[in-house]
């Protein structure tokens, strides 16, 4: 085979890594068979061949053995056995990855999740499911659909790929434009570390506010941080209707212009997808014909979902934009079958390319969508100069391109040309403010290109965080980071010049701001371009850096946690080192994602500047209030942001006037007439403030004197009742409850709530799968002694009910220490 030789055994430059063995150590096979059963262990060299590559097919290396455990316990035992033998492990899901991530490094053992395919729990009321890592994406989707719920991330490979693989790659899909990628839906998970210890991360064991966001970096870690065995995933309610349009264009650049026009107009379709001429040919000559006419140069799929009452108007506006951009024809899917056929063609596009050429160089670069047309022209130019055929199929709404180069790897000269062209395309995208991979990951394939998007400091920080999760270098060696992390000189990476003022880019749905300007001034600048942000800082005077730390997430039910709003940031670590993380594109999986470590109350460092995701400004914002009633049940339908306090149950409605009217009528029917009904910015501000229990506390208490505890009842309890009991038993001064996300906050004066009461509460909650945690003081100053003692007691009691969270605490300690060590302070 002429496929590139698999990279040299990855030593990661760490002395503790054993050198690659060529045979399975004596006794290991036996031990694995005892653990997982004879049929679940593959050691025969012939059978191992089928595990030598993933869907990329560019890299080939068979592992020494494959083990297929059935559950977390078996997996942990298998990891221990492999660990004892001194070998590293490569996790594998369905092997649909497109970056060589699930290809073994020489001398490693592969651990496949194919048998870990059970759904462990599904709670329609709480909109959450717990699955084993080997459950397929579409398996979950079809399980929850009959209950009116959707698992939103829908990679084109969803029929085959596993949710564990989705988490490892932070997979996206056509509908992620509106709904966000996998990370947004991961609420907690169970993983196995290099020693074979089972570690619980997130979920009830680590409620918000309790330290670092350890889930964030884990999602998208490509199997390098540990093996994910169980995942708790959030679900969203199905929308009322959909409208699907197909715009036909002569060129992809025209289709790209239509995309920019649609977004700039404030429309937010669920999906915006483009397929180009070559792809159309392939799809149409396959059994998955989508009815794209031959001869067109590009087809743009636009899909809206939401309220029936609004969809036609949205579709009409999008249609007008398509025609204005030069569409020769715009079609509407007439029925569900028509719509599915259309999507089928798009989703199978990659596979059908097998009919065009024996091999594909799969590209995945992402660019800010406003410069899509220019980038597309640049790619056409590369195709012409290198005399190559490039079939482009992409998530245009996200700016995520898949310009796949068609070739035949048996032709060496051609292969070499293809590789140079691929490098050039990535360079074009990075120069345009984009990144090298939006959803497929770096794996083996793009390691060298990580230099384009990360300098030596960033690479060192990524390596340090990886080592904090995997200190012994046991997981998926040789992936993601380039070999020369330590010595690399930042080849090709040029950080963006710092911003001095707020820069709004409406077509990109993003805003860039220095960390020290007031949050209010950012909102004002955004409003001028009819944009807004769901981050609610409490006070408009707070600087951006504090807003990102303190956001209590009143709108989280609709827009996701604060991490979802941050596309990139320049941060300063405690040692004064500056890191440029993320970028200004909505999808980015180039390297390990450290952004989460610098957000929220547990943040490691300070934000110097940030690029935030913005949203089209809603036409109307309204808050309806009813008498308080903590029955724990959220209102049905799309999760509106809601807050229940001692006084009222407030519901926020935002959107077009027609939609807000519709929802108001519906809610009145369900709950009776509201006691109050406010509109506009003030109403929104009051709503957000209700989330902050300290804000309304009487008697002018000093901030340090107040303890705020975030409470998350577990699946096993009747949440509303349980939260009510908590409030009663700890002498709460104030409280707030979010019935959509089912969690609450309780404020007590440090002097009033007893350690004993809180300990009892924390234990009960943890026993039922939930938990609680005291938020760090908002001032950032150290808590007074009494509060510190209370914090420790709550933490200990919560951990007691989640023994497997001990591993997470160890990881957190190592992450914090690693920053010191990596930058020469305190080590």
């Amino acid at each position, binding site marked *: 085979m002429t496929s590139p030789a698999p990279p040299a055994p990855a030593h990661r430059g760490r002395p503790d890594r054993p050198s690659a063995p060529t045979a399975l150590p004596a006794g290991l096979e036996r031990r694995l068979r005892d653990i997982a059963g004879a049929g679940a262990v593959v050691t025969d060299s012939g059978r191992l*061949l*089928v595990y030598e590559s993933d*869907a990329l097919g560019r890299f080939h290396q068979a592992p020494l053995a494959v083990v297929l455990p059935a559950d977390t316990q078996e997996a942990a035992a298998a990891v221990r056995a492999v660990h004892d033998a001194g070998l590293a492990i490569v996790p594998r899901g*369905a092997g649909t990855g497109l970056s060589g991530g699930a290809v073994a490094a020489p001398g490693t053992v592969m651990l496949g999740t194919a048998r870990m395919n059970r759904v462990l729990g599904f709670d329609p009321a709480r909109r959450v499911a717990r699955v084993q890592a080997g459950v397929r994406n579409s398996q979950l989707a079809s399980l929850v659909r009959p209950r009116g719920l959707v698992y939103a991330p829908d990679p084109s490979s969803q029929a085959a790929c596993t949710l564990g693989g989705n988490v490892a790659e932070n997979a996206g899909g056509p509908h992620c434009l509106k709904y966000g990628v996998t990370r947004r839906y991961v609420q907690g998970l169970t993983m196995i570390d290099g020693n074979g210890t089972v570690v619980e991360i997130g979920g009830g064991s680590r409620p918000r506010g309790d330290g670092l966001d350890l889930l964030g970096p884990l999602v998208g870690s490509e199997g390098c941080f540990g093996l994910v065995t169980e995942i708790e995933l959030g679900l969203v309610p199905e929308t009322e209707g959909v409208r699907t349009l197909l715009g036909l264009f002569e060129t992809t650049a025209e289709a790209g212009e239509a995309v920019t026009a649609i977004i700039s107009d404030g429309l937010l379709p669920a999906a915006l997808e483009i397929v180009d001429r070559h792809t159309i040919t392939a799809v149409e000559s396959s059994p*998955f014909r989508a009815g794209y006419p031959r001869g067109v140069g590009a087809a743009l799929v636009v899909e809206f979902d939401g309220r029936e009452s609004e969809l036609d108007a949205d579709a009409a506006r999008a249609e007008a934009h398509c025609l204005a951009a030069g569409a020769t024809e715009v079609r509407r899917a007439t029925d569900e079958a028509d719509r599915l056929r259309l999507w089928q063609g798009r989703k199978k*596009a*990659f*596979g059908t390319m097998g009919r065009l050429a024996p091999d594909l160089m799969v590209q995945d670069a992402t660019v800010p969508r406003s410069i899509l047309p220019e980038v597309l022209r640049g790619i056409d130019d590369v195709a012409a100069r290198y005399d190559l055929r490039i079939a482009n199929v992409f998530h245009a709404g996200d700016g995520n391109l898949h310009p796949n180069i068609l070739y035949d790897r048996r032709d060496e000269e051609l292969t070499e040309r293809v590789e140079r062209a691929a490098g050039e395309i990535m360079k074009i995208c990075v120069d345009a403010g984009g990144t090298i991979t939006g959803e497929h990951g770096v794996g083996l394939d793009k390691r060298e290109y990580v230099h384009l998007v990360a300098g030596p400091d960033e690479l060192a920080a990524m390596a340090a965080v990886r080592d904090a999760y995997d200190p012994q270098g046991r997981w998926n060696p040789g992936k993601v980071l380039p070999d020369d992390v330590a010595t690399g000189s930042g080849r090709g990476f040029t950080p963006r010049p710092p911003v001095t003022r707020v820069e709004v880019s409406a077509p990109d749905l993003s805003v860039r701001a220095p960390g020290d300007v007031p949050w209010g001034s950012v909102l004002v600048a955004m409003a001028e371009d009819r944009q807004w942000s769901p981050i609610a800082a409490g006070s408009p005077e707070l600087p951006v850096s504090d807003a990102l730390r303190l956001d209590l997430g009143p709108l989280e039910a609709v827009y996701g946690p604060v991490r979802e709003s941050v596309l990139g940031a320049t941060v300063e670590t405690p040692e004064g080192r500056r890191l440029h993380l993320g970028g200004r594109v909505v999808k980015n999986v180039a390297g390990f994602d450290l952004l989460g470590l610098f957000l929220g109350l547990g943040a490691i460092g300070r934000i110097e500047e940030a690029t935030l995701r913005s949203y089209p400004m809603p036409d109307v914002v309204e808050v309806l209030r009813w008498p308080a009633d903590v029955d724990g049940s959220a209102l049905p339908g799309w999760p509106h942001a809601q807050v229940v306090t001692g006084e009222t149950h407030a519901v926020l409605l935002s959107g077009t006037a027609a939609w807000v009217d519709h929802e108001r009528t519906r809610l009145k029917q369900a709950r009776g007439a509201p006691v109050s009904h406010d509109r506009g910015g003030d109403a929104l501000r009051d709503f957000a403030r209700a989330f902050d229990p300290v804000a309304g506390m009487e008697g002018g208490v000093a901030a340090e004197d107040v303890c705020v505890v975030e409470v998350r009842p577990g699946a096993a309890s009747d949440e509303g009742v349980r939260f009510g009991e908590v409030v009663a038993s700890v002498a709460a001064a104030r409280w707030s409850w979010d019935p959509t996300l089912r969690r609450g906050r309780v404020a007590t004066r440090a002097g009033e709530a007893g350690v004993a009461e809180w300990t009892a509460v924390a234990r009960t909650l943890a026993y039922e799968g939930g938990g609680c945690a005291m938020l760090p003081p908002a001032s950032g100053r150290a808590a007074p002694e009494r509060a510190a003692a209370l914090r420790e007691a709550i933490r200990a009691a919560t951990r007691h009910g989640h023994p497997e969270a001990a591993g997470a605490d160890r990881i957190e300690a190592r992450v914090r220490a690693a920053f010191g060590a990596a930058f020469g302070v305190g080590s």
Partner: protein
Amino acid sequence: MSDETRPRGASDTSRAASRPGATSVDPIDILAGRMDAAEEGLLTCVHCGFCLPACPTYRELGDEADSPRGRLHLMRAVAERRLDPASDAFQTHMDRCLGCRACEPVCPSSVPYGSLLESARRVARSAVPARKRSAGRTVEVMLRLFRHPLALRVALSAARLARALRLPTLARRLAPGGRVGEGLRFGAAMLEASGGRGARPVAPDPGRTSRLAGAPVGPRVAFLPGCVQGSLFGRVVDASDRVLTRNGCDVARMGAGGCCGALHAHAGDHDGSLDLARARIGEAERMGVDLVVTDAAGCGAAMKEYGEWFEANPAWAERAAAFSSKVRDVTEVLAELGPVPGGELRRTVAYDPPCHLRHAQRADGATATVLAAIPGLEVRTVADPDACCGGAGIYGVTHPELGGAVGDRKVSEVRATGATCVATGNPGCMMQIGAGLILVGSRMDVVHPVELLDESYALLDGER
């Protein structure tokens, strides 16, 4: 790839040789040749993995070597001469494939898995001496039997006799434990299942097979009873005959015991399959008919592929293609004619499409039309209709554990419908599902869809 590993430039000849119509080439060249033919070769597999969840053996075992992509990868490794075709890996995994072709319709690249499997099995078969073949002697004996109409007739008559004497029931109860015992027990249950009551326990009435007065004038039809169907499911053949006649066809039966060669092709017995195909083509030509019809989905699928089998053989290519173009499943003919409605039949039936109708012929839609011609019949679809029942010829006998596990899923889905009988259009599936039902003590009947239509006609005629 270097020149030693794959004869470059030789692709055309080796591709031609890949057709079962040509003779004496190194069978590995067949696979190697098929790597190059961009339209239909191994190289069209882009390794996307979409076929994994469709595959019953992968779903059961979780090992990618038992997935379509894995099997194609092994084939490619053999073609590239990186893997010995006599190796345990190649032998075992080619053998374990059910041949259900559920992997074909989901493949975005339209990899012709079924025909690649036939080439691969040919390679596998010629790589090891018969006695060492992993499926063992059972398959070899069966294949030899099915090649000779007379011997086959004797064997199947013996089976029918055994069935009449209720020997299978006895054998099933007495079979020893262990792998061999499991296979025996299952085989006995299959035989027992073939003796099911059927929808209409009436004796064939040759007098009624002539065209009914006033019936529309339909096509002249050569009907292939199929070897298993013809012998063990005579009642189905008779029902098909009556139903076709009722709908205006002029039915003439092809020679009893004439096998279509499907089993041989699936098992990699290349020469055997071609001999039988030539015989069937000749026979149909002599009969001078419009259509060649069968009620066994497996036979139909094979006969529709004769054209491809002989593509590279100038002497036979045209004749085979003409033959294949005439082949229909019995339900297809009925659906095309628009079946005459029957009398009211108050029953609930679970319908499970045979893989060879659904995936290989992609024609299972016709069955719905046939069943819709029966007033009062409530049809319930079996969940996961894409999944194989595990029948795959004699899979349940040669691979009792895996076949059993695959079959168990199907049997529980069938029972979950709550219907009183299950309809499926292939003898292997009827026996497989029937055997599974017997072993779990269910009293559900297994019928062919045409039997229901036949019964409905009988009710209309007031025969009962």
